[in-house]
Every structure is written in C-alpha cells, then in structure tokens.
C-alpha cells in the first residue's frame, strides 16, 4: 500500500521542524560573530622573536624535516656575529595541514601556531608565505627562552659567559 505509506510519511518532517522552531539557535553568525577558539588551537604558523627582539629561527631544517607534507622550505645563512638565521623561509599554507609537528620539532621555539584560521585566498600563490609574512614582533607562547643564551657558543654573549659555562680554558696551562 504505497499510498498509505506516503501519507504517513508526509507528517513527521513537519513535526520535527515545528518542534525545533522554538529552540535556541546553535549557528554562529561568522564573520559578524567571531568564534572563541581554545588557546591551543592549531592554525596559521608564525615565526617569533626571542626576548631580546632577535629572530628565534636558526634555520636548522628540523621543522621542514618533520613536516609530513613538505610545505616548509628555507635557506640558512650566517650573520657577521656568527648567528645562524634564515635568509629566506617559506611556508606553503595551501599545502599545510596544520598538524603542528613543526612546532614540536622546533628546538628554539621559533615556529609557533596561532589561532588565526582565516587564511583562505582565491589565488593559491597568495597562500605561499615568505619570511616577512611569517615573522611577528613578539615571543609567542614563551617570553623567556632565548636559544643563543643556552647554546654554549659565543653568539649572544662572549664564549664562557653564558649561564652555566666556565671561562674558556687556557690550553697552554700545565697546572694540575
């Protein structure tokens, strides 16, 4: 009896609609209304600076090595004071899957995730971010750590003056 079944099936959808008409709406009116994201939300990546205001990134290639989709590329260079830095640094956000493995690999806390997820563009090339687009003017999640102060080589401070280092040895000294 298909007719009877069709008639029976006609009413329940109206009932469902009617029942929900008086409920509080759940839709967020984005972009008029911005969603509140958890603090550890993983979205656009940034390159932070250390407390002295220097670039934290030392272009060690660990983020690009950890990246499962190969969206990070860079070239390291040496500054006059011996500091290793990225002469260019590129993240292709069209390829990035926001897994955050790069931030876990980063030994200097340079690359960090932010909660800015609004990075859709019409032109995929505009999703290729260069170092200037990535570098921010703050320390990000950690405002204390400075890699070069811990590294044990004389870049941030002369050799032997960093915390927990003794002064350079005199190799011609024969005292016991």
């Amino acid at each position, binding site marked *: 009896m298909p007719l009877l079944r069709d008639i029976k099936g006609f009413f329940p959808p109206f009932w469902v609609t009617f029942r929900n008409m008086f409920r509080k709406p759940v839709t967020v009116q984005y972009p008029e209304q911005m969603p509140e994201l958890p603090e550890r939300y993983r979205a656009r990546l940034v390159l932070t600076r250390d407390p002295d205001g220097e670039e934290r990134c*030392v*272009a*060690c*290639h*660990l983020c*690009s*090595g950890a990246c499962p989709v190969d969206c990070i590329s860079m*070239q*390291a*260079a*040496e500054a006059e004071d011996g500091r*290793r830095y990225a*002469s*260019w*640094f*590129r993240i292709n956000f069209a390829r990035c899957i926001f897994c955050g493995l790069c931030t876990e690999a980063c*030994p*200097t806390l340079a690359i960090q995730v932010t909660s800015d997820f609004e990075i859709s563009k019409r032109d995929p*090339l505009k999703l*290729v971010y*260069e*170092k200037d687009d990535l570098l921010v003017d703050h320390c990000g999640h950690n405002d204390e750590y400075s*890699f070069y102060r*811990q*590294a*044990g*080589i004389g870049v941030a401070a002369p*050799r*032997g003056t960093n915390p*927990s*280092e*003794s*002064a*350079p*040895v*005199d*190799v*011609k*000294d*024969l005292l*016991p």
Partner: protein
Amino acid sequence: MPTLTIDNQQVTVPDGTTVLEAAEQLGIVIPHFCYHKALGAVGACRMCAVTVVEGTFKGLKMSCLVKAEEGMVVTTDDQQSVEFRARVSEWLMLNHPHDCPVCDEGGECQLQEMTIASGHGLRRYTGKKRTYNNQQLGPFIAQEMNRCIQCYRCVRTYKDYCGGKDFGVMGSRNRVFFGRFKDGTLESDFSGNIVDACPTGVFTDKTYRFKSRYWDLQEAPSICPHCSLGCSTVPGGRYGELQRVRSSVNEKVNGFFICDRGRFGSSYVNHPERPRQATRGSWKLTVDEALQQLDVKARELINQHGPESVLLLGSNRASLETNWLLQRWAEEIGCRAPLLSAHLPRHQAAQVAAFDLADRLCSLEKVRQSDLVVAIGADPLAEAPMLGVALRQAVRSGGKVKVFDPRPVELPCDFEKQTVSPTELLDLLDGTSVESKQLVDLLRGAERPVLVAGGLMLGAGGMLRLKKIAAAASNDQRNCLVHPLLGGANSFGAALLSLPEQDDLLTRLESERIKMLVCVETDPLLEAPDNERFAKALSLLEELVVLDYLPTPLSVHANLFIPTTAPVESEGTFINNEGRQQLFAPVIKPRLPISVTGEGNHPPREFIDVAPGSDPIPSWQLFQQLLGEATDLPTLREKMKTAVPRLIDFETLQPGGVSCRVAHVDERCIYTDEIPAAPEESLQLVVTPARYGSDLLSRYSAKLQPRFTEACVQLHPQDAAARGLQDGAKVVLDTVEGPFNLTLKCNDKMAIGCALVENGPKFQQLVPGGKLSFCKVHAGMSHG
C-alpha cells in the same frame, strides 16, 4: 683463525681481528667513536664496552682493543655493558654544548646517534660546562672546540695518516685541545679529511657552512674527476647547486680519504658563467636545433671536401661512453677517426699505460702495501695527491720511498730524493747506465716493489723505458708493479679506445684541410701545448663546434656551442690510471641554482614547467641523438662492451663499488723518444701542474681560489747566480712557444740546469706533459 661467539652468534675471523671488527662482520654494531677502520683503535672514548664472558680476560672490556680468541664468548647487550655505555654517553655530553640546531654536523653526527641510542636525554650534572676559544683554520675548515669529545680522530687522521705537520693535540687533563699552535690556514693538502673523521661537529666544512642538512642533500656515489686516480667520492647537492663532496670508501683506490683538491674543487659545477644555453654566435637555439645544425654541417662539409675536412676531438674529461659514441658518429658521417686528446704527448703516455704496461698495473692499495716505491718523474702532491698519502702508508708499515725528479718534490712522509734533470731521468731508465743498473738492483732486492711512473714528465718514450726496467726487476716469484700517473680522470679510457698511432692536433689543423672542428668537453687553448699556434689555426676553420660544461675561452670562439652536463649531473664511466673501470651516478639535475634564480632571497614566486638553465644534457645522450638511437644506458654499455672487449662487463659493476681493472692485451705501442740536443746556455724547461688549479675543473672552482699560487719561474740558486739574477727579480723565460715575463724564485731543492714553471690559474700558457724542450732565462723586459 679463531672462532668466537658474540651475542649467541658464531663467527670465524682472521688472527688479530678485534672483537669490534668481528661483531661488525656479524652485522652487530657496537657503538664507538675513536675506532676508525683506517686509523685503528686507541681506546680513548670508552664507548665500545662489551662483556667478555669466556676468554683470557673476563669482564667489561673495550671491544676495539680486545683481540678475538678461540672459544671467546662476548655479549654486547647485557645489562652491565648497556649501562656502562649509557654512562659513557652521559659523561661525553657533560661539556657538549646545546647547539645542535646551529651545527652543520647535525643529522649526520655520530655523537647525536650514540646519545639517542643510549637513551641519554637530560643532563643530571649541574656543574659548569667547559669552553674553549676557537682557532681560525683557513678557508676550508671551521672549528668549534666546545663540541669536542676527545676521540683523537682528527689528529690521527691529519698527522698520523695524512702526514700533516701543523696540527696536533695540546694541553692537559680536561683542557685537551686539538688544533694548530696558533691561528692560521691548515697547510696539509688533505686537511678536509678531519671533517669526515670527526664524529661530531668540531671540524666542519667551511665552504658548506649552513648550506644544507644531511637529510636534504641529494647524494650519489661518484668518481673524483680532478686527477687520474679516480678516488671514490659522494658529492652532495641541493636546490640545483653542488654544495659539498665527501670521501667515500674504495679500499682498492683511495681507501677512506680524499685530497682537498677533490673535496673543495667541485664548485665549477656552480660557476656563475657556466654556459647553459645552445648558441650560434649570439643566437639562442634549442639543443635539438643545434644538433641538427651540427649534423647537417658536418655531412655537408664531408660531401664537399672529403673525410679529412671534419675533425672530432674527444677528451679525458669526457666519459668513456661519450668518447666511444664520438668514434661511432665519426664512422656514421664518414670522417676520420676522432682524436681523443688535444695533448698528444700526454695521450701517448696514457696509451703506453693502457697497452704496454697493462699487465703490470697496480692499485693504490698495492702502493700502500709496498715495501719499496720508486717514483720516477712524479710529483704526487701535484699530479695525484692521494698517492702521497698512499706512499706515507707504505713508509708507516716499514716500506721505503725513493723519488727521482727534477722538481722540488714534497711528500707527507720520509723519502729519499734524487734530484735529476729530465734528460738524466731518461738516462736513468735506459737500462745500460750505472744508475740504471743500481735502480734495477734496488728493485730486485724488494719483495713488493712498485714503480710510480709520472706520465707527464716521462712521456711515452720514458714510460716504455720504464717498462723495461720493471721487466728487468721482476722475477718468477713476483712482478715489479707499475703505478702510472696520467693527465686526467679518463685519460686511460680515452687511450684505450684510440688507435696507437695518431697525428698531432696542430699539424692536422695547420694543414688547412680541416674545415670543421668539434671539441667535446675539451679546450685545446688551455689543455694543449702550443696554444698560441692553436689559436692562430682556429682562424683557418670554417666552423668550430664546442660541447662543454665549463665557460672555457674556446666556447667564446665557438660558432656553435652546445651545453653538456658535468660529471655529477650525469651517469658515465671513467677508467682511472691503473685501468680500473669505475661508474659514477648522477647527483643533481642540471639547472640554475635557486641561489641564482632567487638572487640570494627566496626562490621566484611563479609556476613554471621547466627549471631555468636545465637545457644541458649528458654528452653521450647528445651523440645518441645524432646517431638516431634512443637506447638506454645499459643497452649502450652492452654494445660498447661488445665493441671493446677489454672492458669489464658493465652488469658486474655499480657506482660506488670497488670495480675491476680492464683486461690487458698483447697490442703494443711503438713510440720512440728523441732527446734533442741542448742549445748553448740553455736550461731544460720543466712544466709542472700546480697543486691547485692545474686541471680545468679546479681552475673554475671558486672555493679553491685561496689556494692558487702566483706564477713564477724557479731556478736553482747556482743557475740564477750564473746568470746574475736574484730571487724575486723580473725575468724573461724564452721558450719555443714564446717569451713570458715572470718573477724568479730560487729553489735549491730542484735540479741544476732546469727552469721550472707551474701551470695553473695564474699561468696558463705552458701546459705540462710536452716533449723535452729547452729555454733561456734572462733579466729585463721582453719585446713581446
């Protein structure tokens, strides 16, 4: 041959093998730092601890120092050994800085690997870390002493193995320091090896500083193209740029190390002026168009003017495949057989090595094991640097080295030097003189004698004389072996392919019958004797075609230029000086490096199908296209093997392998050497390759520039005094090739009656390896 048990696996090893080496044979890796196969063990790092359960000395032992014994039982993974090694790892890290992210060794660091393997992660000790001040060690090596773990590998490599004198260990207790007595460039020609030997990042390659990580590098086994020894290397490149070369292992050839020329001489691949575009004059062409034009023009000229009108020129830089296909293309278009070298005397010397001496050739390994090496007309550090290290190994194991040469030869070992002029060298080898008989007697007295024959100095005639000496010194029990030094990486290969008699390139060019010259990866302006005459002869040509990957002066003169790939960008075969047929694999693809296209900044932001500058294709592929064949390399090699039966079956070879020597033949070369009469008051002209920049590849390497030496003419002080000349004076060197203005340098270690000039980047006009010639040296300015 004791049989021992390691981790419940039995292995039988030769007497004297250590437990560590025995475990290696079973595939059990015992962590270690100070042990190195070439350097031996010193027991300095304490990392290779194992427990000896059964044996003369039971308990925890250093496996690199304990010799294998019959019935020995060893465990490597018991709790005691594992804990001990973990503690060793922890204490080695006590002073190690926290700088792996900015260390070039990161990713290929043995210390990193061992620390992670032993599970050490957190520094429990809260005391202060020891620091050092670093030294400036010159353009090649960067030092960061804070990272040192005192394994002594650097000093054992530099000083003990390679014979460097200006590097050592200083200090006491935990202040031990590895470096020079004061800042300065490392003098040894093998300094780069401490980069490979250092298990952590104390010594790193300065020319590769902060360029790439190990895991990002494209690497492949290759053959060093800088001299005829054919050392095994692993070049590494990234982003279209060849960034470094490290040594690879071939125990028959270089062993574990390479020289600085090979290590730092690779940047010719990235030369900023390297031609990457086919051109006719100022017109840009595609490679296909250029090949078409080459083919049409060659056939047209042969039809019009006969087979003599087209001359093809191969080279010792080009691979065996290229030279062979060049010969086949010559047959196809009907011109005369190509010359495979622009430098006839060098080529003839190589032919003597490839044919006459073929049954006496020996590898560098045999040189290292020899008890008497007599080097005749050879300056190893200039012609084949790793031979110098091999000679040192011979001396270290009790052998003797004797050198007969007009040049002030230096070697990294003790040796006896007899300074003789080039004509005296030929007298020495004639078999009748007193010195000659003494030499034969000396060789007869040795158990494993090796004659090193300097092909450049001796020439074909001298090499043939040397063969007689070698025959006279051989007996039923053992052969007197010969280790020849030739002109280039594939000199032997080019010699093996070509017919024993040939005319000179110049005489043929000057005959005016030649309308078209095709130079394949060679520049006679820099590589042939009498290059001024050659330059004049070029104007007689109707068409000059150059196929090359270097920005040589000849490519400027070329009517048609076709770019080819460097050895690191293509597959191929080189045959080294002792006839070892070695394959090399492609490392990077030819293209403009990203550092160039991006001008140092980030790479260009555009989508393109083809990388800029990726036109060059391997020269053997060019000739395959000309021949209308599109076979792959294995098929081509199979054909080549059938045509040239002396070659080893290519299927048995692989890049980076030990490889085999080509078969020897009964064919003989017939060359005579005439000693020209010396004009009045003349000196014998000796042209020697400079240690750096004599071969074209290192001349075009920017990295080696700090090592290039100034041009000068050297005389014995006695000769200088006889001419009233003083050290440092401006003099004129009058040769058959013209006069040259040079600075005089007096050197009492060279032969009397000789004038010595170095061919290098600063003086390119005279090329080593010519026939005996005479010159005059006088003060004042020349008219020309």
